[in-house]
């Protein structure tokens, strides 16, 4: 693992995330790579709380907590001003949840990466609005129950494919990463850090025990299953064209779905439908990888 033992973690212990929070694990690993010359831009999201009140203000780097819809724009503004100041070393890292990336923040993100602003934008994806108590987002997968897709009204639309949206902007680097594959994830952060030119995007799978209905000690286990069943494939896209697959999943989706309360209501047919969608997405990805 690319883990420098002389580099102390840039996240304090005793933060206010829920036990087993994937987003907290993701930040810890990310900052080990990014180092102290990093500015973090956080819109409204769980991390707005986790980076919370003194003495639990958990990050040892400068944090700009910005309005919900503005992570991309705020990061772009910081970058431009750092450039004017002659500071090319500091990396500006936007760190937003799926709501702040897929939904309300998409316009701001698209604007920033179309301008090719020199930022690293990280979406930690827990697949719903967890900070307000589990409402669906456009990242919530097909089949999920949330408080705004309750009962038999569970979500019937697909999860938005955010990496493809970013790849379509032809940015230098877009990739997925998972807290269950820390070496792979930290390698991607290192790659994005070293590029230090133009827009880079990392889509990080971040388990939410509270919102998904799993035990907190299953956080990594579930994240691993998601990759192994190809619900969340690990891959990289350079310049919107060159696709690299990092892991070949071989499992069926059943075990992944059945392990979580948010999917407990799904029938055998429903699970078959999810499998068909995953297979379809996988085939499409393989076409791009082998192109």
């Amino acid at each position, binding site marked *: 693992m690319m883990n420098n033992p002389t580099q102390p973690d840039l996240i304090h212990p005793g933060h206010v995330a829920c036990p087993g929070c994937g987003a907290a694990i993701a930040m810890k690993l990310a900052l080990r790579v990014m180092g102290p010359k990093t500015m973090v831009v956080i819109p*409204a999201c769980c991390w707005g709380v986790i980076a919370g009140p003194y003495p639990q203000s958990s990050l040892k780097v400068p944090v700009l907590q910005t309005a*919900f819809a503005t992570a991309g724009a705020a990061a772009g503004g910081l970058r431009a001003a750092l450039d004017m100041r002659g500071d090319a070393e500091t990396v500006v890292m936007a760190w937003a949840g799926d709501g702040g990336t897929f939904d309300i923040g998409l316009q701001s993100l698209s604007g920033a990466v179309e301008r090719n602003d020199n930022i690293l934008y990280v979406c930690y994806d827990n697949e719903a609005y967890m900070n307000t108590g589990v409402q669906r987002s456009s990242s919530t997968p097909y089949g999920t129950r949330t408080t705004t897709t309750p009962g038999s009204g569970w979500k019937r639309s697909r999860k938005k494919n955010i990496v493809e949206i970013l790849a379509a902007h032809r940015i230098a680097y877009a990739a997925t990463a998972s807290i269950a594959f820390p070496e792979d994830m930290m390698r991607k952060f290192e790659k994005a850090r070293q590029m230090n030119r133009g827009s880079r995007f990392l889509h990080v799978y971040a388990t939410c025990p509270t919102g998904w209905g799993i035990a907190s000690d299953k956080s990594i286990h579930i994240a691993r299953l998601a990759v192994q069943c190809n619900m969340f494939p690990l891959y990289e896209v350079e310049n919107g064209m060159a696709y690299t697959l990092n892991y070949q999943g071989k499992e069926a989706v059943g075990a992944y779905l059945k392990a979580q309360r948010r999917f407990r209501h799904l029938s055998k047919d429903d699970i078959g439908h999810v499998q068909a969608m995953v297979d379809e997405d996988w085939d499409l990805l393989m076409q791009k990888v082998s192109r």
Partner: protein
Amino acid sequence: MDPNIKFIQGNEVCVEAALYAGLNFFAGYPITPSTEIAEHLAQKLPEQGGKFIQMEDEIASMAAIIGASLTGKKVMTATSGPGFSLMQEALGYAIMTEIPCVIVNVMRGGPSTGLPTSVGQGDVMQARWGTHGDHGIIALTASNHQDVFSITIDAFNLAETYRTPVILLFDEVVGHMREKLVVPEPGEIPIVERLRTSVKGGVDYHPYLPREDGRLPMSDFGGVHRYNVTGLYHDMWGFPSNNPSVVQGLHRHLNDKITNNVNQISRYKEYYLEDAECILISYGSAARSALHVVQERRPRGEKLGLLELQTLWPFPYQMIKEKCENAKSIAVVELNAGQVLRAVKRAVNDPEKVFLANRIDGVFITPVDIRNMLRFVQGRGA
């Protein structure tokens, strides 16, 4: 137990009342402390054949309810400060195009992200002037669950009557507090249905030509009449116009239809005003503490009264002037730096006798806070 008696949160009361008033379309976006409204409607609206949509942000929420209302539905969205800020442009669009809709703002501490889980009443002026340009607006509030129920229905009725957005300015305490609600029987509270045009299809229809009484009969969009809707100044057909007389006429109409009907729109409650030497003026959750002070001090001979405002906009200047004529002092009790205070000072003969009793620290104002301030006003020291 009587199924009509409920012990629920204020946000749920708002949901019950909206459904009672005929709500059949809701578009919204999660935000504390209003999220329960969306969550309950996500469950209840589909059960009743209505439509719930979770949007990608508050700009979209506001735009979606405008479209749905134009096609004939009774619509609502719910939010809090930051979301209300994002809604302002489309709110102005609804004012300009005269599309009925109800916007709930469960107020929290602001500005910006502010205090998401704490109470505040700092959006009173935003409700009045948040969107740009001269305009009339209706904003209502309530302090207890029975009143939240009836004022929510009023909001729908006024939106239909005046073809305007109506803002419900609740606050975090009212929204999250649980207390008893007795749900009225169907028909017990009158419901205003949409005034639809009697003009037949194929006949020249003027969607923006008010009747003599100022009301504007609607035609469900996409129905028998083809017409144009725009946020530009527009003529009686709804087509854009910069003809000065058309512009001035519409400008006047948009303002006058609200301000000329202050007495019809104004709702308030009064306690012991007849002989009151000191009048508390309050609204929303803060009025609960104000009422407690009045009820506690009256038996001790203090001539205290309470005027609880339920209509904040259009502001009832004349009513307040009359009610306060004989008072020696007036204390405005609110959870901001003095937004209604300033309006009250403009209303009364002697603005020097109006004082502020407030908290701006995210903590709910208590009767003790108000009493301490009254001692100061009455020259008895803090």
